[in-house]
C-alpha cells in the first residue's frame, strides 16, 4: 500500500511542469466558445435550483468539435466520401457531494449538438437545454442512489468523485487539413490492386472482396468545470486500412486486413509501402486457399510474433489494468480480471508495464495514444502498472476506487461518450528480452525436445484468431495452415506460461474512438491451445465473377 502512495506522489511531481506556463481565465475568455461555456456555467452554478431540492455541486461542459473525413473504395472504385463537421456538447451535472453523489446511474449527462458558429447565444442555448435535463436527471439519480445505499450492508469502498486541482490549459484549436482528392484516389487504387497489379492476375477471379478506407479525424475539445478547470486541447488521428477476402475450395472464408495509423499524416505508411503490403496480403489469399486446415486440436508451445503478442497483451492485460467502480454493496476494489490482483503477479518477474501518455514517439514511430490532458481535465501522468511482474497500480480517472482516491489522468472519453479509465500509451518490456532469431531457435528446440510440431503466429485478425499461422516441424520446416483459433490465451497463460520474450518491441497504434498505443515484445509460451475454428462454411459463389 505504501508503495503505491509513494508512486502517486512521484507522479504528481512529474506532472507539475506541464502546468508551468499557466494561462488564465481572462485568456480563455478570448475564445468565444470558452466564453459562452463559462457564462452559462456561472449562471447555472448560481441560479439553477429546483425549489426544495439541492443545487448541483459540480457541473462540467465538454464541447467537441469533430472534423471527420472518410473515403471508402471497393474493387478499385470509390464507393463513399464523407466529410462531416459537427460540435457536440456533453453536459455533466452532479448533485450531492464528492463522497456520495448522483453519479453512476444512467443519465448524469446530457448531449446536445451545438453551434459551428461563434454565436454565444446559440452555444449557451444548447448548454442551457442540456444542463436543465442533466440536472433533473441527476436529482432523480441521487434519490435512487440514496435508496440503493439503504439496501446494502457494505458501504461504498471509495468516494464517488475525486478532488482534483483545477487546471487552465489552452492549446491552439486545430482543423482538418488534407488533400482529399489524393486520398480518395489512393484508397481507390489500393482496393483495385487485385486487378491492376501484374503479379496478382492469376488469383484475380477468386478475390471476393477487396476494399480500402481512409479515415481522418481532428478534434478540438473545450472543457470547463465548476472547480475552475478550463481546457482547450486537440487530438488528431489518421488511418488507412485495407481488407480482402476469398473462400477456400471447402467454403472456408479467408480474410486478410491491415491498417496504418498515426497521429499525423506523415506518420502513416507511404503509398508504396502500403500498396506493397496490400499486394502481399492479396497474394497470401492464394497461398491460404491452398494451405491445409489446422489439426483438430493442439496443446503446446506457441511463439507469438511481437505484432501478435502486442494485440494479445493489449486485450488480456490492457483490459484488466483500468479501474472502474464496483457494484454497490460489494467489497470489491474494482471490476475486471484484475479486481483482486493488486500486489500479485500477473506477468513473469522480468516484466514491466508502464502507461505513459506523454510518450509521443517510440523508435521514431509516432504514437496515436499520446495526450497531455485527459477528458476530465486532469493532466496525464505516467503510471507504473506492473513491476517485476506484479500489478502495483491501476489506470484511473475521477471515479475513485479503494486506496486510489485520485485520478492519474486516465479518464478518457470517446466522441460524445462518458469518460472512463483507459490506456494511452501502454508499454510492456521484459528485462531479459531475446532477439527474434533466438526466440525462433528456442521454439525449434522445443519441437525437437518434444518430438512434435509447434506453432508460430505471425499476425492476428482478432484477439484469438490467427490470420497467418505456421506449423513448425522439428526439422525446421514451416508450413502455413488455415482455419485455426487460439484458446487458453488468457491471464493465466500470460502469468505462468511465458517462457521467453523478445527484445525488439512492436508498436500497435489502435485508431478508434479512444486512440491507444500498445508497445510490446514477442512472446514464447509453453502451453497454448490451437484448434479448428469450425465456423460455418458458406456455399462457394453460385456463379463466377465478371471478367
Amino acid at each position, binding site marked *: 500500500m505504501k508503495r503505491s502512495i509513494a508512486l502517486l506522489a512521484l507522479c504528481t511531481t512529474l506532472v507539475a511542469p506541464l502546468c508551468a506556463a499557466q494561462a488564465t481565465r481572462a485568456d480563455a475568455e478570448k475564445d468565444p466558445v470558452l466564453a459562452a461555456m463559462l457564462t452559462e456555467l456561472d449562471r447555472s452554478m448560481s441560479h439553477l435550483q429546483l425549489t426544495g431540492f439541492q443545487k448541483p455541486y459540480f457541473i462540467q461542459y465538454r464541447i467537441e468539435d469533430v472534423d471527420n473525413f472518410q473515403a471508402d473504395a471497393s474493387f478499385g472504385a470509390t*464507393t463513399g466520401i464523407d466529410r462531416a*463537421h459537427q460540435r457536440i456538447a456533453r453536459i455533466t451535472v452532479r448533485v450531492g457531494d464528492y463522497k456520495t453523489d448522483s453519479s453512476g446511474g444512467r443519465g448524469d449527462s446530457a448531449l446536445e*449538438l451545438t453551434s459551428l458558429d461563434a*454565436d454565444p447565444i446559440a452555444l449557451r*442555448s444548447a448548454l442551457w437545454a442540456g444542463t436543465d435535463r442533466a440536472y433533473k436527471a441527476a436529482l432523480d439519480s441521487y434519490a435512487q442512489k440514496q435508496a440503493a445505499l439503504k439496501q446494502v450492508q457494505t458501504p461504498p469502498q471509495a468516494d464517488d468523485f475525486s478532488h482534483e486541482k483545477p487546471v487552465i490549459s489552452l492549446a491552439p484549436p486545430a482543423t482538418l487539413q488534407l488533400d482529399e482528392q489524393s486520398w480518395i484516389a489512393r484508397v481507390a487504387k489500393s482496393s483495385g490492386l487485385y486487378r491492376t497489379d501484374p503479379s496478382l492476375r492469376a488469383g484475380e477471379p477468386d478475390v471476393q472482396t477487396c476494399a480500402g478506407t481512409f479515415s481522418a479525424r481532428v478534434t478540438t475539445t473545450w472543457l470547463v468545470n465548476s472547480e475552475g478547470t478550463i481546457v482547450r486541447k486537440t487530438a488528431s488521428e489518421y488511418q488507412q486500412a485495407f481488407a480482402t477476402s476469398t473462400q477456400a475450395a471447402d467454403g472456408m472464408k479467408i480474410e486478410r486486413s491491415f491498417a496504418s495509423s498515426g497521429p499525423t499524416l506523415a506518420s502513416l505508411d507511404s503509398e508504396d509501402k502500403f500498396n506493397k503490403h496490400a499486394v502481399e496480403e492479396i497474394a497470401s489469399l492464394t497461398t491460404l486457399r491452398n494451405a491445409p486446415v489446422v489439426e483438430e486440436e493442439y496443446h503446446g508451445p506457441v511463439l507469438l510474433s511481437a505484432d501478435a503478442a502486442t494485440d494479445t497483451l493489449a486485450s488480456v492485460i490492457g483490459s484488466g489494468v483500468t479501474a472502474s467502480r464496483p457494484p454497490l454493496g460489494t467489497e470489491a476494489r474494482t471490476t475486471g480480471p484484475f479486481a483482486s490482483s493488486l500486489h500479485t503477479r500477473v506477468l513473469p518477474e522480468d516484466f514491466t508495464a508502464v502507461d505513459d501518455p506523454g510518450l509521443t514517439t517510440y523508435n521514431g514511430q509516432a504514437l496515436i495514444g499520446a495526450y497531455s490532458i485527459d477528458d476530465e481535465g486532469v493532466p496525464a501522468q505516467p503510471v507504473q502498472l506492473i513491476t517485476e511482474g506484479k500489478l502495483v497500480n491501476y489506470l484511473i480517472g475521477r471515479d475513485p476506487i479503494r486506496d486510489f482516491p485520485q485520478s492519474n489522468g486516465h479518464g478518457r472519453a470517446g466522441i460524445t461518450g462518458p469518460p472512463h479509465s483507459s490506456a494511452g500509451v501502454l508499454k510492456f518490456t521484459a528485462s531479459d528480452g531475446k532477439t527474434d532469431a533466438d526466440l525462433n531457435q528456442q521454439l525449434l528446440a522445443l519441437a525437437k525436445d518434444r518430438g512434435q510440431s509447434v506453432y508460430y503466429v505471425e499476425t492476428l485478425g482478432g484477439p484469438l484468431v490467427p490470420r497467418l499461422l505456421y506449423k513448425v516441424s522439428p526439422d525446421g520446416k514451416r508450413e502455413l495452415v488455415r482455419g485455426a483459433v487460439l484458446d487458453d490465451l488468457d491471464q493465466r497463460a500470460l502469468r505462468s506460461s511465458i517462457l521467453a520474450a523478445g527484445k525488439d518491441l512492436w508498436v500497435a497504434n489502435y485508431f478508434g474512438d479512444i486512440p491507444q498505443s500498445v508497445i510490446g515484445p514477442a512472446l514464447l509460451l509453453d502451453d497454448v491451445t490451437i484448434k479448428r475454428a469450425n465456423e460455418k462454411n*458458406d456455399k462457394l459463389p*453460385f456463379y463466377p465473377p465478371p471478367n
Partner: protein
Amino acid sequence: MPYKSCFALPALALRLLSLFAALLIVLSTSPLRAAEPKDSSVLLSTMTSELDRAFHALGHQPGADPTRQLPPYFMSYSVADAHQVNIRAEYGALISSADSHARIADIQIRIGSPQLDNTHGTHRASAVNSVVLPLTDDKEAIARSLWYATDAGYGNAIDNYLRVKTEAEVRAKEEDTSPDFSKEPPVVALQKPAPAIVLDRAAWEKRIRQLSAIFREYPDVYQNIVILSVQNETDYLVSSEGSRVVTPHVSARLVALAVTRADDGMDLFRAQTFEAETADGLPSQAELETAIHNLGKSLEDLRKAPVTVPFNGPAILSGRAAAVFFHEVLGHRLEGQRQRGDEEGQTFTKDIGKEVLPSFLSVADDPTLERYGKTWLNGTYTYDDEGQKAQRVQLIQDGILKTFLMSRLPIKGFSDSNGHGRAQTGRIPTGRQGNLIVTSTKTESDAELRKQLIEEAKKQGKPYGLYFEDISSGFAVTQRNSPQAFQVIPLVVYRVYVDGRPDELVRGVSIVGTPLSAMKSILATDDHPEVFNGECGAESGTVPVSAVAPAILLSNIETQRQPQGTARPPILPIPGSPVTDKAEAPNSESSLLGKKEAK
C-alpha cells in the same frame, strides 16, 4: 460461360418495348424529361449486361444441384444515385452543413413462379439485397459489386423459397390465393438523369441560420431546428423482363420544427414544411420569416391555452388538416397489400362497390399531377419503383370504393399494378400513395361552413364545435414500421362557441373512436382545397407524398385529453431572452471559485 445479350428478348417483349418507347416520346413534355433517350451511361449498360449474365448463369451452372439451385424467374437491379445537401440550424446558429453522394443498388431476385415465389407471406423482404456501388463509372468495379451482392441475394432467395414451399404444404388454404407477382409488360423509358444540385451554399446557410434565430423572439420555444434538404436523385432500373427505366427525382424541402412545454408538463410542438422542385422554388425569405413567426407565436399561445375536456360533437378540419387526415386514415387503408395477409386489418377488402364516404366526395391518387394550382406536389413521379408507369387511380367515385393502390403484388380481384409500387432504397415496393386528391361536389364558402358548424352544435345541444387548424403531419409521427403511421395528432384546435364568444385555442386534444366512422359523418366541404406535402413512412420505407383536400365539416368527432409528459419546463430562462440577460448580468464578472465559496 453462356452469355446472352440483353436484347435477346422474346419477340412479344420486343414489340411491347417499342410501343412503350413510342408512348414515352408523346408524353415527354416537361423540360426535365425532354431528354434524348440515350443509353450510353456506363452504369446502366453495366447493370443491364451484369443482370443478363446473372439471370442466365444462376441455376444453370454445370454441376449445380437441380433441387436447390433453381434458376430465378425474375431479377431486377435498381440503383438510386442520390446527391444531397443538408443544412441545419438550431438556436440561430449552424449545426451542420454537408453534402453527400451515394449509389445504392437493390437487387431483387424471385425464385419459383409468379404464382408462388420466395416473397410469399412473411418472406416478402427476402427478395431484396442491397449493395453500395462505386460512385465513378468504373465498369469492372460496378460489375464486381453487383456480382458479389447478387450471389449473396440468390443464396438468401433460394433459402426462403424452400421455406415458402414447405410452409405452403403444411398450412390450410389461404383466403386470398392470388399470385405473388403480377405479369406486366416490360417498360423502356430512358429519361434524362437529374441535373447536379445548384445551390448557393453560403447564402442558404445564412438564410437557414436567420430563420432559426427568429425563435429567439419567442423565449418559450425551448427547442427549434430549421433544415434545408435538397436531393437530386436518378433512379435506374433494369429487369430480366427487359425493362430499362431511368427516372430523375429532384426535390427541395425546408422544415421548421419548434418545441415548447406547458407549465403542467405537456410537450407541444409545431412543424411546418415547404417543398419545391428546387431550392429556388421555395418561398421567399420574407414569407418563410412570417411562417416562422407564426410558429413561434402559435407555440407561445398554445402553452397558455386551456387543456381540452372530452368532447363528442361537430368539427371542421381545415383543408391542410383534412389532407393529412385523409392520407393517414383513408389512404393507408387503400393500399393493396393491406387487403391480403393474416396480419392486415383488411378494413376495405370486402367494400368494393360499396359506399365508404358520403356521395359528394371522390378520392383519386394521381402521381402524374405535378402541381395543384401553383403548389408543386411532393408525391409526383413518372415511373414507380417497380418500373411501372405512374397512373391516376380513381379510388373512390361519388363515395363508392372502386379500387386499391396496387404494386405488383396482386390481391383478390386485382391482378395488376396500377403504378403505385413504391419503396425507399433497400425495401421491396408495396402499394403506396403518391398525390392523394379529395374532391367534393358539395362545397360551401368558409363563412357558410362555419355557420353550419355552429348550427350543428346548437342542434346537438353543444356549447361549441371544434375547429382543427393543424394536425400533425406524417413527418412527425411516422416511425418506420410503426402502427403510429395511421395516427393523427391534432396540434392546433379552437373551440367555436355557439353564443358568439371569440374562438378559443385549446391544447391536448386527441381524436378517439374510429376515425373512419368520423369520415362517414362529413356533412359538407369548403371550396378551396389545400395541399399538404410530406414524407410518408410505412413498411416499404419513407417516400415523398402529397395530399390535397378541402376543409370538411363533420357532424361527429370524438376527442379526449391526450396523455402528456410530467417533466417541468426548463428552470432557468433560455439564454438571450430579455429575462435571462437581466438575471445574469451581475454574475458574469465574478469568478467560478469565488462563487462556489459564496454559496
